[in-house]
């Protein structure tokens, strides 16, 4: 196999390992739209990164974090519901990003690769980002795992039992921001949320504990990335959408398997 295939495989699996457990919490806490919003701000991050002459990942992480903080602040007011706020932020960030990009002279970026991912062009440096950032995210998630699970079940009960609810929530949002920045290259900003959601949803059919669901989601995500990449190489389909198609196929199989098993009983 060619080197670029290996890099794609290693990078894709690396991202899947982190995004699975984190995605479980996104599913449990009903934060899918939050993930969408953060990823839509990525273009703005890339544009700002170009303006300030820093790597795109740095721009993306910064903008994602700013947006997460902004959202926490905005949620203090009660007139608008969370999903309305997210809708406003999500689309304004996307549009602002696209508009800003056209103003940057001499910048030639391949928009499609950011929108839909560019798995097969992963560089060694990208791998450092994925494993560095992903490693930090995974360690962070392990550290807050128990309190976060506790407050996902009942926030007030967790607080009475001594969980620093505000901090844990903030750390969790920052971890999502980090992982989105890291995973951008794999499936692209428009499809990242699918990798946060589809593998955990698939894992749910087989899991009996939260932890089982988390590691199953990692494995299922890795399989989806591998299958998607094979498909992309064979049929010359775009990498990001191929990965998502593979993930959805696994989900469908799991769904039918569960339905059939229930029918047989």
């Amino acid at each position, binding site marked *: 196999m060619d080197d670029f295939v290996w890099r794609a495989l290693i990078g894709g699996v690396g991202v899947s390992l982190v995004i699975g457990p984190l995605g479980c919490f996104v599913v*449990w806490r*009903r934060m899918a739209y939050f993930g969408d919003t953060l990823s839509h701000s990525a273009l703005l991050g890339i544009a700002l990164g170009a303006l300030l002459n820093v790597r795109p990942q740095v721009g993306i992480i910064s903008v994602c974090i700013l947006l997460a903080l902004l959202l926490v602040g905005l949620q203090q007011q009660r007139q608008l519901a969370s999903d309305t706020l997210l809708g406003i932020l999500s689309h304004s960030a996307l549009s602002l990003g696209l508009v800003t990009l056209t103003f940057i002279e001499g910048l030639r970026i391949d928009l499609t690769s950011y929108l839909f991912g560019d798995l097969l062009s992963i560089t060694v440096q990208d791998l450092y980002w994925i494993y560095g950032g992903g490693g930090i995210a995974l360690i962070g998630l392990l550290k807050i795992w128990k309190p976060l699970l506790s407050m996902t*079940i009942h926030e*007030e*009960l967790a*607080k009475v*039992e001594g969980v620093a609810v505000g901090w844990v929530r903030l750390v969790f949002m920052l971890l999502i921001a980090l992982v989105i920045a890291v995973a951008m290259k794999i499936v692209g900003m428009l499809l990242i949320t699918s990798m946060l959601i589809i593998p955990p949803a698939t894992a749910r059919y087989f899991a*009996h*504990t939260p932890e089982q669901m988390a590691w199953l989601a990692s494995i299922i995500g890795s399989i989806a990335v591998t299958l998607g990449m094979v498909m992309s190489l064979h049929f010359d389909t775009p990498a990001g959408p191929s990965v998502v198609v593979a993930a959805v196929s696994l989900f469908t199989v799991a769904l039918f398997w569960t339905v059939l098993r229930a029918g047989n009983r």
Partner: protein
Amino acid sequence: MPLIQVHEVSVKFEQHLALQNVSLNLNRREIVTLIGPNGAGKSTLVRVILGLIKPYSGMVVRQNGIRIGYMPQKLHIDAVLPLTVARFLALSGVQQPEVLRNTLAEVGVKTELLKRPLQQISGGEMQRVLLARALLRAPDLLVLDEPIQGVDVNGQYELYELIAQIRTQRGCGILMVSHDLHLVMAATDSIICLNQQICCMGHPAAVSQHPAYLALFGARAARDLAFYSHHHAAEQELPVKKFENIIPIVPAENLPRVPR
């Protein structure tokens, strides 16, 4: 020193005053029951005491270093989270199987229940599991928001007995919210009748005769309460704390008539 001192607490939600000038003390080995109609501010008072919301004015003083066990009014868990009863209980931080076994026995939960998904157990079982979670922390103060909801009639008796027993055996203070007016009397030392402000408080027998209580719950409820008190606790004369400026929220003549 009391476990909790609530001092002239008021709570405001936007324009709406949920609690007004509420003061009370909670002691070790004491069971205090909050009663009041829906929306009276019972859960709000509980939240203030737990430190979950800050009062608009007034203050809550807690004895240093006390542990609180809390049983929330409702717990809804989405089916998307695979969670067994055992795992839910382990989240309290208590891991020793022996403590777990004893606590389960104490609240009357069979160990077979441990392996079941939390979403599938019955309402009554859920209440006991929640109580177990609160007890696992070996609390100095137990706060129970409507502990008998969804429990069958026999179960209600049992639960109140259990609560009384927890008090004698563990010696903790207990604050609970209740809607039922007669059963709860078997277990409580004093009653606080709440409707945005404290209408009256004191021993069940005394509260049942109080005009503010009658205005709030009507004659039928008073008979229930008096019936109980007559049988169980009316022997000792216990004083009811008098409040000078009681404003019944519902004028007595607007209350639904009790059929005779």
